[in-house]
């Protein structure tokens, strides 16, 4: 489906079931999926280590508990995607649209969120050490109880909720 055909922010219709190999727990590690439309699909717990998803459409995609170690999602559209409990070590979300993304309980070291749009994102209880939020939009993001030790928020824009977050060594 082309983005221009989209009517709802997230749709789950028959086309989301058109790829039977893309299911919860699937192994898509290392695959070249740049620019693909995976919106609304259920890939919970999938192995996406090192996957290439630059500028992909992941609106409302279910990636909870998925392993995205070393994945490249730079410039991807992840609005309303569900990444709760996902593993994000070394992944890049640089410049991605992560409006209202679910990152509750996600874990990762040196994840790149630079210039990402994290408006209204929910990284509560996430463990994100030494991550890069340079020039990201964090307006209304909720980092409640997140462990952000050593992360870099230099030039980040907007007011976020850091209630009981661990900001030890955070640069702002």
């Amino acid at each position, binding site marked *: 489906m082309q983005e221009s055909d989209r*009517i*709802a*922010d*997230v*749709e*789950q*219709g*028959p086309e989301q079931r058109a790829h039977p190999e893309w299911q*919860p727990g699937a192994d898509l590690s290392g695959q070249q999926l740049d620019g693909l439309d995976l919106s*609304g699909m259920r890939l*919970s717990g999938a192995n996406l280590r090192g996957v290439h998803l630059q500028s992909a459409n992941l609106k*409302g995609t*279910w990636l*909870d*508990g998925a392993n995205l170690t070393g994945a490249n999602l730079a410039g991807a559209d992840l609005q*309303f*995607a*569900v990444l*709760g*409990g996902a593993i994000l070590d070394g992944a890049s979300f640089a410049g991605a649209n992560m409006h*209202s*993304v*679910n990152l*509750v*309980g996600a874990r990762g070291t040196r994840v790149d969120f630079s210039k990402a749009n994290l408006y*209204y*994102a*929910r990284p*509560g*209880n996430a463990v994100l050490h030494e991550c890069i939020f340079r020039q990201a939009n964090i307006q209304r993001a*909720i980092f*409640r*109880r997140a462990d952000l030790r050593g992360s870099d928020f230099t030039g980040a824009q907007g007011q976020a909720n850091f209630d*009981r977050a661990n900001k030890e060594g955070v640069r702002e």
Partner: protein
Amino acid sequence: MIFGHFLLGVNEANAFILGCEETKEAWLIDAGEYDPRFGRFLDKYGLTLTGILVTHGHWDHTDGLAECVAAFKAKVYSNLDTMAGVASTQLGHGDVIHIGRIEGHIVETPGHTPDGISLIVPGMVFTGDALFNGSVGGTGTPADHDRQLQAIRDHIFSLPVETQVHVGHGPSTTVGIEKQYNPFFV
């Protein structure tokens, strides 16, 4: 099942359409405003809107109700007999609804408001403002807060962990994520 999620312009509220692929009947869940995309979504999938479920009576979930009823001639369902000035079929705990061949179960999840209800369909639950991703809806008193958390524990967290939770504001989530990470419960 056909599913659509709409981020509305009113207070960042969500609305959803659930449709039956077999009978082409559909329901709208919450109507914070009338959004022309509703009609386009229904047309795209050949659906007819027969019901509008209101999860609770706050303005950002009801302000578009009268206009949606007028546009789609759909019946209104809520925990009250009148919702935002519109006649409503009253649903309570344990009631069963049908969206075509999709069977839904109503559970009461009060606290944020006294009339809060959630809709459970296969694989999904719609919680309104009772439960959010990583949070819960605001309450007026400690007793209401306790009532809300207990209702969520009893009726939402008892669902399978992979159940999709679609909420009144913010991103969707799963029962498993909220049981493990929501700071109001852990």
